[in-house]
């Protein structure tokens, strides 16, 4: 039993090691580290599209992290870095697509649905309460 627990504990330890297997980065300052981490978390890995390039172990994510850091150190702004990546890999790389073209539907869609649903629910409730009142009147008459 003890042995098994130990084995499980060791396996769990290995799991945490795997998730931190990304290459170490020598940051110049804590501010740089913070900006780098925030920026790479906003960029989507092109190979494994359910991960950001901050999380991914794919070789291309490694290359893109290095490129982002290089551009940051060249003094490029976050927007410039994003534009650089969009020019090469399209808006796929952005977790927050910019609001133009058909993208407004992505942004406004949920609110439009919520609004429509709200109206519908309000109408149903109003109709139902109206129907209930008439029903009460009818039973009154029967008595």
């Amino acid at each position, binding site marked *: 039993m003890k042995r098994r627990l130990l084995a499980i504990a060791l396996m769990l330890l290995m799991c945490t090691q795997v998730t931190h297997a990304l290459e170490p980065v020598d940051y110049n300052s804590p501010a740089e580290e913070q900006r780098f981490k925030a920026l790479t978390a906003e960029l989507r890995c*092109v*190979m494994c*599209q359910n991960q950001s390039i901050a999380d991914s172990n794919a*070789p*291309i994510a490694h*290359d*893109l992290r290095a*490129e982002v850091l290089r551009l940051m150190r060249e003094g490029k702004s976050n927007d410039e870095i994003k534009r650089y990546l*969009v*020019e*090469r*890999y*399209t808006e*796929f790389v952005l977790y927050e697509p910019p609001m133009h073209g058909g993208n407004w539907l992505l942004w406004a869609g949920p609110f439009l649905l919520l609004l429509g649903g709200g109206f519908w629910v309000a109408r149903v409730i109003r*109709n139902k309460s109206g129907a209930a009142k008439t029903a009460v009147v009818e039973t009154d008459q029967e008595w």
Partner: protein
Amino acid sequence: MIQRLLPLALFVGLAVLLFVGVRMNSGKDTSAIPSPLIGKPAPALALPVLPMPETRLAPADLGGKAYVLNVWGSWCVSCRIEHPVITELSGSGVLVVGYNYKDPAEDATAWLQKFGNPYALVIQDLDGQAALDWGIYGAPETFVIDAQGIVRYKHIGPLTREIIAADILPALKGAQ
């Protein structure tokens, strides 16, 4: 009556939406990202040439010629699968340039010697830095570049005879 049919209508609407969505994506590699380079000038091929006896060209000679750029690596399993198709394409007289991606020269040379070299020219991108300008994110990937140096077409994943007939050859025809 209309009130009663509303849920059914909503359901049918959703079902149609789902069906269209599935149909639009079936048979398509949904992980493939369209290239933003289509219709734009191809990035420079300022990369070292892998020395092979079959090499017939230098990167500078590609100006004014339409060609197919095939990204591959000896580490890439799908490239091995794609290899006979690339050999056929190159054998049919199409100018095929190999883009050797993240591959040590010895491995690349050994791979080409073992399976045959279909490329008129192989350029080497060892660290994958230049690949970023092409929007390359894996192998195999294939581009068609026209005589004016404009990217006409990109395919992600292994080429098949069907893709060559349906997309590559028409793109090349328009590219001369």
